[in-house]
């Protein structure tokens, strides 16, 4: 199995309010199609690690490789391109642009990438929205749909550019159990059917135990 993400000896410090060593020598790999969850207590650094892996946080020591390409030390604009093309995000809070329609939200990253025509993008977006069961909500404004539907729309958006990996920060964190199961099943399906790697930070024991691998963290170390 090929490696998608490789983190080598990642160290991270918070400098304010005082110097604090958050991540201590973190190294691990994620393979293609693997569904991994990161667990740990609040403050153990799991979200911080996710932001580094997502390339949004560049203030760290160590080395980050995505799909064979070294990302450490690249410029902000290059990293934006990498995020656009290869990484999908799903956050705890839904983070759709409230003034755009659901469909427009989903299409946005693809239109930024500009690889396909508008019509093709629209067709793809509709397809993934239908796949996630909210095709009928596509034309509604993003602020007008329910929480579970928003999270599914965010997943559709994460999928639009056929990313190598989808990262999530507590993607089911504020969903009820029914919606939570629903979202989990969607992730499961993506990993097994489309071969997309998934990396999810979570507090939810039930969620984590159904994933392929759990990375457990404590005080900035990986403990298992």
């Amino acid at each position, binding site marked *: 199995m090929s490696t998608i993400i490789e983190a080598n000896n990642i160290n991270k410090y918070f400098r304010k309010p005082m110097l604090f060593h958050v991540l201590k020598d973190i190294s691990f790999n994620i393979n293609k199609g693997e569904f991994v969850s990161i667990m740990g207590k609040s403050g153990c650094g799991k979200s911080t690690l996710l932001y580094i892996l*997502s390339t949004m946080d560049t203030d760290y020591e160590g080395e980050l490789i995505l799909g064979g390409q070294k990302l450490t030390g690249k410029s902000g*604009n290059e990293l934006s391109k990498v995020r*656009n093309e290869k990484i999908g995000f799903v956050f705890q809070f839904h*983070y759709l642009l409230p003034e755009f329609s659901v469909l427009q939200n989903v299409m946005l990253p693809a239109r930024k990438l500009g690889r396909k025509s508008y019509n093709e993008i629209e067709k793809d977006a509709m397809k993934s929205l239908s796949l996630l069961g909210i095709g009928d909500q596509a034309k509604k404004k993003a602020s007008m749909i329910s929480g579970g539907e928003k999270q599914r729309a965010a997943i559709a958006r994460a999928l639009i550019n056929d990313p190598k990996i989808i990262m999530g920060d507590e993607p089911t964190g504020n969903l009820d159990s029914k919606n939570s199961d629903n979202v989990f099943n969607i992730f499961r399906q993506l990993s097994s059917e489309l071969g997309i790697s998934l990396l999810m930070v979570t507090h939810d024991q039930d969620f984590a135990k159904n994933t392929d691998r759990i990375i457990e963290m404590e005080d900035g170390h990986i403990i298992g």
Partner: protein
Amino acid sequence: MTDFKIILEITKTHLLSRFKQSSIAALGVTFGIGTFIVLVSFMTGLNNMLDGLTLNRTPHIHIYNEIKPSEVQPIDRSEEYKNSYNVIRSIKPKRSQERIHNALPLMAVLTKDNRVKGITSQVAAKVFYISGSIELNGVVNGINVADEVKLFNFGDYIIKGSPENLLRNSNGILLGAGLADKMSLSVGDRLQLSSVNGGVFPLKVVGIFQSGLADIDNIQSYVNLKTAQEFLGEGSNYISDINVKLWDIDKAFLFSKEISKQHQVTAIDIKTANAQFETGTTIRNLITYSVSITLLIVAGFGIYNILNMLIYEKMNDIAILKATGFSGNDVKLIFISQALIIGLIGGLLGLIFGLFISILIDHTPFETQALPTIKTFPVNFKILYYVIGIIFALVSTFLAGYLPARRAQSIDPVDVIRGQ
């Protein structure tokens, strides 16, 4: 390369979702630009009119023979008193001719000079106007009416009759409006002129002119050059004033110095004679621009404020855009293009608003004794001011949008997402 369409679409959605604020920001620009257009059109219209008033009828160089005491007195030539301090009391000018010495050859020289657009010659004579029992003193100028019309817009000041009438009638006179009033004379009436040395000349009123300056209109009249020369009992070489119009008014000063030195006459250039008028123009322009720029700065602060607030409100949107692959530059572009669109729409409306008000002013009646040719307020519809106006609008809104956009560019998505 980013698809600019998507940036514009986000911009549009942001603007439309806050239509009220966007409109108010645009209205600020509209007001600023509109006021600029109105002010500048009206001010320059007024300036041009006032300048024209002076420039049209003032010769660029006025040549005459001034009677004054000799600058070099005999004692100054004496070798004996060369190094002493000489005081002469009660110097009087020598009696000499009032006409320009050798006027005809001088005119020939000036006409050939390629700096000169044209010259007119005049004969001034002191007279008494006699009509019935009234006698008024005044001045009659003999002119070459065709040249005066061509070079100094003389025709503009004829309020009754026409300058051609003078050309056709060698015993005609164009009477000052004040004089005509005092003597109750109108076109077609007759009056007599009496010269200082006693001769009486009957003349026919062929027109009435009004210069706008009461002092002139009360004493001055115009007759044909030849009539004036006959009236004085002089020949055709008697010329008391030569008025020169140049192609380039800026050369007047040096050229006037040259003429007075070469031909021993007094030559006064327009800037020396009317020093105040250029100062007035400059100051009016200064006021116009400073008021407009102040208005635009105020409008700019409005835009700055609104965009700043927008960025606070759109913190989440900015974080999402950045997380999903939009670069800081894209985000900056979104906000700068918002500012520019506000500037463009506000500016264009401002131009229309300004044009509308200008047209309104242009049609407002404005009649004054001083300016017989002006019927409405003067407005200058120069396309350049509209170009300056829209450039002003874009530059000021760009500057107002740039700082907030820079802030949006540097927002760290991790901070926003973590902060939730």
